[in-house]
């Protein structure tokens, strides 16, 4: 087994990296892959609460790197979704407790044990970012349709290119009504400005907040639009790159008809 390491990053904080990591990781595991999601936000861990696994933490990623425990001991198994594991961040250390070399060393055993390894990157471009991307084969850049988020995404994309990684873009927290009335950048706008490949579009969805409140996986809720969008991203990553990004049986091709509407207006 030779697993793939995918970093989820953004530059700007609070755009949905942790949400995306939890959801795509879970969706990927539901496709039968062995998945581990790793919280690289040392000192500010959150992936555990978003996944509802916070009360099962014994060891963390810093323990693993420092040799205080085995990967197997630190990886918490999700009891609701088969094949899904979480390695939490340490809450008491800081980002300098790890080095990119540590992560590269660890990556060999991770690759041998899992099909997909998702790294939840902290905000910023400093050590935490360097650690999270150190061993990455691929990168998902998350941004929202806002000026500051897109500008930061552009900076991150530049840094990833410098590391010979060609990232793919997720536009999160889209409000279609605002796009339609011309008060929010559309995903076409975002793609045009950043000129990178899109892998997913996720709408603003109250169910994301509810899922985080309860710790129940969003991707297990069939009627969540955001949850379905994350399922599609996982499918596109996992051998179905040509699956349409927009879900056409949902609201009679809502996205497509929105696109048409906009084109007519311009």
């Amino acid at each position: 087994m030779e697993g793939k390491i995918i970093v989820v990053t953004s530059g700007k904080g609070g755009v949905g990296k942790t949400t995306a990591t939890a959801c795509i990781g879970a969706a990927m595991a539901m496709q039968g892959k062995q998945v581990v999601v790793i919280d690289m936000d040392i000192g500010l861990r959150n992936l555990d609460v978003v996944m509802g696994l916070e009360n099962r933490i014994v060891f963390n990623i810093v323990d693993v790197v420092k040799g205080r425990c085995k990967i197997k001991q630190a990886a918490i198994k999700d009891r609701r979704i088969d094949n899904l594991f979480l390695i939490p961040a340490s809450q008491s250390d800081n980002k300098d407790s790890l080095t990119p070399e540590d992560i590269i060393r660890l990556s060999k055993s991770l690759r041998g044990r899992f099909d997909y390894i998702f790294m939840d990157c902290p905000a910023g471009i400093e050590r935490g970012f360097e650690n999270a991307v150190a061993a990455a084969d691929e990168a998902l850049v998350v941004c929202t349709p806002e000026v500051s988020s897109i500008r930061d995404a552009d900076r991150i994309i530049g840094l990833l290119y410098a590391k010979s990684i060609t990232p793919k873009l997720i536009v999160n927290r889209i409000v279609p009504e605002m796009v339609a009335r011309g008060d929010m950048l559309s995903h076409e706008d975002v793609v045009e400005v950043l000129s990178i490949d899109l892998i997913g579009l996720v709408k603003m969805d109250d169910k994301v907040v509810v899922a985080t409140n309860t710790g129940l996986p969003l991707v297990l809720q069939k009627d969540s639009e955001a949850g379905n969008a994350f399922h599609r991203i996982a499918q596109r990553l996992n051998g179905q790159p040509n699956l349409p990004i927009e879900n056409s049986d949902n609201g009679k091709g809502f996205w497509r008809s929105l696109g048409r509407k906009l084109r007519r207006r311009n």
Partner: protein
Amino acid sequence: MFKDLFGNFFGRQGSREVAKKRLKFALVYDKLEVSDDLLNDLQRDVVEVISKYFEVDTSAMKLDIKRSDDLSALVLNTPILSAKRR
């Protein structure tokens, strides 16, 4: 230009177009920014190349980025002491 921005902002067009214009401008502008480290490395390399052909006063050499509204230029100023005979 500001009239343009606000004209759009309050007009029918919505803030989306304004956002797009501002973004494009910001991204181009961001990429013109050059760090001191990069400039120092460049100066060191340039000195090395020029020294193959000219005797130059390296202490008086100055490498700078000059910015105006529509373009950025790399400006190198160096006193030549003599040309090297080859």
